[in-house]
């Protein structure tokens, strides 16, 4: 859902740019609490994986495609603040080098695809975890739900920007129904990819999943006795 140049007017794009800059500052501060010694390469891996997965457009309806946004996935794997930074990195690289998403719309794209998806995706994920049994099996299911709701919410965010500063003047209700409607379908793809990816990591290294860190049982305290040496 990369917004190109020209969908939104200049003041709205600039305001979104300001939101993005302040938001990135908050993410940098927040990510300090999430990052550990071993998570720097993991942050790189998450960004690279989201970039690769975003290239893979899947068909959603006749003549329409969608792709992973990745905010929910990144937030669950590495923490919501760091996850938003990872997706921001992807969006900057895509805009500068791959002509995907307008340069003037970069603030809008960062706000919607990095901040909204990470916040909503992680919020939904945590909410689901409180309702599911406290086991690691619940994590991919909660990830599925969080990812699913993150996409239409980002689409709703676009409708909000369009209502404030769209360069065309269409009935906002029609735009909202069409944009959110197609993104419910794309959200299903997002949910499947996110659930499978989180499930795969849970299967091999559950301790590396930020969102699952409270579900990993602490190793039981073992009492070992040493046999007195017989000499």
């Amino acid at each position: 859902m990369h917004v190109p140049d020209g969908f939104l007017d200049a003041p709205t794009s600039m305001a979104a740019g300001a939101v993005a800059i302040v938001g990135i500052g908050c993410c940098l501060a927040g990510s300090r609490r999430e990052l550990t010694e071993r998570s720097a390469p993991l942050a790189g891996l998450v960004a690279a994986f989201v970039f690769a997965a975003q290239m893979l457009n899947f068909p959603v309806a006749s003549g329409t495609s969608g792709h992973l946004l990745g905010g929910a996935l990144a937030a669950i794997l590495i923490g919501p603040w760091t996850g938003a930074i990872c997706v921001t990195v992807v969006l900057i690289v895509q805009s500068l080098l791959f002509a995907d998403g307008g340069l003037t719309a970069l603030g809008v794209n960062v706000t919607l695809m990095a901040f909204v998806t990470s916040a909503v995706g992680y919020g939904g994920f945590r909410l689901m975890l409180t309702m599911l049994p406290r086991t690691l099996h619940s994590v991919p299911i909660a990830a599925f739900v969080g990812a699913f709701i993150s996409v239409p919410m980002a689409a709703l965010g676009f409708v909000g920007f369009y209502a404030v500063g769209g360069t065309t003047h269409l009935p906002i209700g029609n735009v909202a129904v069409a944009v959110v409607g197609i993104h419910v379908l794309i959200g299903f793809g997002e949910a499947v990819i996110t659930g499978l990816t989180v499930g795969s990591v849970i299967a091999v290294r559950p301790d590396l999943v930020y969102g699952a860190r409270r579900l990993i049982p602490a190793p039981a305290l073992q009492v070992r006795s040493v046999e007195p040496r017989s000499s």
Partner: protein
Amino acid sequence: MRSRGFVLVGLLATILLAGGFGYWASDSPDGLNRVAMDKGFNAHERAPVTSNSPMAGYESTAVEDPWLSSAVAGVTGAAICFAFAGVAAFAIRRKRGDLASTGPPPADQPRDLHRDGPR
């Protein structure tokens, strides 16, 4: 699986996705662009200013073959994202480490044996 092994396997999967499968991704317009075309709110859309960059549209201009062109662009992009985000995370993390280890701990606080080790 060790952490380093995990990152290597993850990178391998990423290269496979970006390099191997990018070419077969759907060419249909993305959901937002599709709706914009149908409803007409793309009337003032401008071509991206970076559209003549060497990897615009996920196709490398350096390679003729369409599959290889997509693969080169995908793997290059993934590598740049890995480096960019990895360095950023390392810098954020290091800053915190520096703050945490300035000077000896105050005398009235118990020493953190895990960090300082036995004397």
